[in-house]
């Protein structure tokens, strides 16, 4: 086996052991970031890169290698070309090409019954034309634009997967997330009813909210399976960012969020997939729920006390995240390393731990990435089991 293949295999084994709640040779380091930071790091223009993905191919491997990471997520980049040509209302580029997501409402409260009866038809006929004006054209034109958009999406996705393979081949970085899905309640809240809309609906029409989540669950289950590359495997995992729970009270979480979320996660892990949850916001009141999920779940925590998280969910869930990227902006290198040291002391004992930041690093501006390199070097030097 060549040295490069050996390195790739070592990194993959390191991650797999942590996901299996075992002790690897040392704590693995995961790169939680979008390609935008790699573009910034290499001094290239994001606006150019979103139109010319060759720049992404050039910059990502450099970033991964310099940051000394063991693994990364599948490349995910929203490009203005894909969105502006179909008249997107929900993803809009800012001046330098970074995509912004404004608060949008794609479904009216009077359309719940339709969504519950035929969710996919309602998404295509009602929601998409509101969020993408090119689909709201008379006659065959709307359908034609949908087909053109789908073709563009397929081509774009193919190039991103080629970039992933290039990162694997050129700098031996395994890609440990594959496709992305959402919990039914998050899907309903994010772009169908909006944050404001769903907050009102939980009071005015709670039964319809419950039924809508039930109606959306089969779509998410099926998308989890059909969007995955090949047969179910432990690695790469299916990625699921969780949005709304920090804004729900415990009763609302238990009634609206948990039932379909639990069945989605347990259904997919039951089929042999690993699910990586990006646990956004503060979930400290909800750790007991997370601890009830079936094994083969990885949790990336944005906030929280790692010691408590380890105690509450660490028996069944591989944990990662929580390193505060704000420290890279304001703290000294020594202080940044001290934070990592405490985090390792709290979370690493017994295995089942992957080191990464609590937030996805979106941009390089304002952050001192040399401090991140120093932190990662500390984990490499002192994170041996």
């Amino acid at each position: 086996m060549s040295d490069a293949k050996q390195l790739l295999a070592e990194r993959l084994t390191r991650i797999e052991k942590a996901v299996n709640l075992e002790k690897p040779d040392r704590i693995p380091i995961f790169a939680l970031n979008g390609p935008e930071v790699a573009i910034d790091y290499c001094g290239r223009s994001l606006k150019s890169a979103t139109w010319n993905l060759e720049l992404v191919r050039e910059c990502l491997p450099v970033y991964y290698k310099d940051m000394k990471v063991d693994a990364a997520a599948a490349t995910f980049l929203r490009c203005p070309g894909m969105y502006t040509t179909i008249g997107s209302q929900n993803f809009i580029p800012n001046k330098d090409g970074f995509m912004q997501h404004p608060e949008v409402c794609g479904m009216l409260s009077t359309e719940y019954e339709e969504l519950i009866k035929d969710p996919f038809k309602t998404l295509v006929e009602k929601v998409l034309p509101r969020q993408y004006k090119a689909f709201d054209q008379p006659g065959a034109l709307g359908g034609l634009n949908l087909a053109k958009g789908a073709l563009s999406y397929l081509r774009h996705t193919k190039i991103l997967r080629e970039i992933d393979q290039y990162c694997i081949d050129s700098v031996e970085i395994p890609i440990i997330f594959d496709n992305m899905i959402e919990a039914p309640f998050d899907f309903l809240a994010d772009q169908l009813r909006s944050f404001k809309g769903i907050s009102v609906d939980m009071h005015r029409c709670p039964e319809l909210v419950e039924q809508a989540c039930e109606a959306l669950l089969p779509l998410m289950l099926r998308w989890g399976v059909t969007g995955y590359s090949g047969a179910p495997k432990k690695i790469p995992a299916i990625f699921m960012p969780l949005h709304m729970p920090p804004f729900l009270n415990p009763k609302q979480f238990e009634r609206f969020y948990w039932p379909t979320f639990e069945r989605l996660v347990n259904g997919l892990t039951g089929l042999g997939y690993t699910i990586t949850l990006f646990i956004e916001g503060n979930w400290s009141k909800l750790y007991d729920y997370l601890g009830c999920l079936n094994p083969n779940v990885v949790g990336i925590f944005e906030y929280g006390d790692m010691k408590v998280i380890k105690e509450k969910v660490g028996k069944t869930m591989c944990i990662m995240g929580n390193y505060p990227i704000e420290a890279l902006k304001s703290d000294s290198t020594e202080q940044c390393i001290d934070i990592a040291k405490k985090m390792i002391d709290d979370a690493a004992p017994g295995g089942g731990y992957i080191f990464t930041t609590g937030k996805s690093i979106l941009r390089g501006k304002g952050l001192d990435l040399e401090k991140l390199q120093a932190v990662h070097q500390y984990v490499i030097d002192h994170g041996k089991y």
Partner: protein
Amino acid sequence: METIKSEYLDYFETYAARHPELTEEDVAIMADPWDVNEDVLLGYVLSLLI
């Protein structure tokens, strides 16, 4: 695997039900490629809303 009931995704099934002259062989030939497209369509539509 989840079966999703929708006029869009079950287009062929709906079409076949309206045309009893189609044989099982016709259905088998036409259903397969539609199944592939169905997943592509599902993935595209959901990806625009996530």
